[in-house]
C-alpha cells in the first residue's frame, strides 16, 4: 500500500517539477530576451555611428583633396566599410540638411532595426542623385565639379 502512494506522488512530483522547471526556463529566457535584444540594438547603433563617422571623415578627405586638385583634377577614394554590422546588413543615405553644404548620413540596419545619423559639412557639393546605398565598401569620387558617393564594385 505504501509503494502505491509513493508511485503516484513520484509521477506527479516529476510532472510538477518538469512543468515548473519548464515555466521557469521560459520565463527566464523571455525575461532576458528583450534585455539581449536591447543590448544588441545598442551595440549595433553605436557601431553604425562609428561607421557613419568613418564615412563622413572619408568624404571630408575627398573634399580636401578636391580643393587641392583644382577644377581640372579628379579624386577617387575607397571607403572600406564592412558589409554587415553584427548579423545584419545596413543601408546608407546622404541628405542635405541645410544651406552651404550641410549634410547628414543616415545609416539604417535591418537586424535589430536601428538608425544612426552623423552630420558633417563639405566645401564642395555632394551630388544629390545618390539614392540609398547598401552598406559595404563605397567609392567617393570628385569629378571636377562635385562629390559623388556610390557603391564600390
Amino acid at each position: 500500500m505504501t509503494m502505491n502512494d509513493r508511485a503516484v506522488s513520484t509521477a506527479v512530483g516529476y510532472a510538477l517539477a518538469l512543468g515548473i522547471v519548464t515555466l521557469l526556463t521560459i520565463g527566464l529566457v523571455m525575461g532576458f530576451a528583450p534585455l539581449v535584444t536591447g543590448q544588441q540594438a545598442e551595440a549595433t547603433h553605436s557601431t553604425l555611428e562609428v561607421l557613419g563617422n568613418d564615412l563622413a571623415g572619408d568624404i571630408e578627405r575627398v573634399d580636401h583633396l578636391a580643393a587641392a586638385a583644382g577644377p581640372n583634377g579628379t579624386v577617387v577614394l575607397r571607403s572600406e566599410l564592412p558589409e554587415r554590422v553584427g548579423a545584419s546588413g545596413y543601408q546608407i543615405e546622404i541628405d542635405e540638411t541645410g544651406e552651404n553644404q550641410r549634410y547628414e548620413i543616415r545609416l539604417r540596419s535591418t537586424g535589430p532595426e536601428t538608425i544612426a545619423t552623423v552630420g558633417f559639412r563639405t566645401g564642395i557639393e555632394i551630388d544629390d542623385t545618390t539614392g540609398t546605398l547598401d552598406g559595404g565598401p563605397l567609392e567617393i569620387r570628385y569629378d571636377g565639379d562635385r562629390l559623388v558617393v556610390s557603391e564600390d564594385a
Partner: protein
Amino acid sequence: MADVARGDRGQLLIVSAIGLAILLTALALALNTAAYAGTHAAASDNGLHEQQAAIGYQASAERAVADLMAINDTTESDLRAAVEDWDQLTGAEYARDGAVTHVSVTDTTVENRIVQDDTRNFTDQSGADNWTVATNATAVEGFEMVLEATALSSSDDCTASGACFTLTVEDEDGDAWRLFASNTSENESVEITVETSNGTTETCTAEASSAPINVTNGVFVDESGAECSFTSFTEDDGVTAPYTIRYERATNVTGTYTLTVTGNVVEGSIEDDERYATTGSPRITPQIRAANVSISYQSPQLTYHGRIRVVPGDDDE
C-alpha cells in the same frame, strides 16, 4: 523519497546551469558588438594617411617646380628636363610605400627679354642676315629701337623684295605688318616706311644721325624731338597674335633694340641656339612666369589627379 529529492536537485542544477549559460552568452555577444565598435573607433585611419601623402607629394612637387622656375635663364625645356628627373627620383621612393606618383609640366608662360645694347647691325649672334627673332609669340611688349643712319640702304624700292632693312610681324594667317628703314636723302637721315596688312603706307623721317622708335606704341621721334605717329602692329587689326617676328637684310641697319616676347622663343637650351646667347648682343633672358603642372598619386585606396598653376618661388639668393 530520498531518490526523488536527489532527482529534483539534479534537474534544478541543469536548468539553472542552462539559464546561466544563455544569460552569459547573450551578454557576451552584446558586449562583443559593443567592443567591436569601441576598437574600430581607435583603429588606424587609412583615409587620412592617404590624403596626407597625396597632398604632401603635391606640395613637394609644387615647391620643386617653383624653385626650378626661379633659376636664371631657365627655358621651358630646361624646366621640363629637371621636372622629369625629379619625377623619377621621387617615384622610386613613393613606390616603396605602394604608391605610384607622377608629375609633369603641361605648358608654360615664358617672358623673354631680348636685348641688343651694343650698336651693331641687326644680325643675330651667328651673323645671319635674315633671321626669325621669335615665333609663336603670344604677346610682344616694350619693343623699342634706336636706328643709326650709317648703314641704311639708299634704295627707293622699300618693299618686301627690296634692299631696305625690313622688320616683319606676321600672324598665322600670313597677314604681315612691315617696317622698312632707309635713307634716300643725301644727308644723314633716318626714314621709316610702315606698311600695314591692308597695304596702307606711312612714313616718318628724322634728319639726324639716329632716331628712337617705339614700335609697340607706333611713335617715331624726329630731329626736333617731335613725335611722328604710325600704326603699330599692335594697332593693326589684320595681324593678330601669335606673331612671328623677322629681320631681313639686317646688315643694312645699325643700332640697338630691346623687346619682351611672351612665348617659347628658344626651343631647347640657349647654348644650342645660334641666334642668341646669355651675354653680348643680341642676348635673351627667359623668365618662366607660370607653369601648368599635372600631378598624380595612385595607391590601392586613392586615385588622385591634380592640375595646378605654379609661379616662381621666392629665391633667397
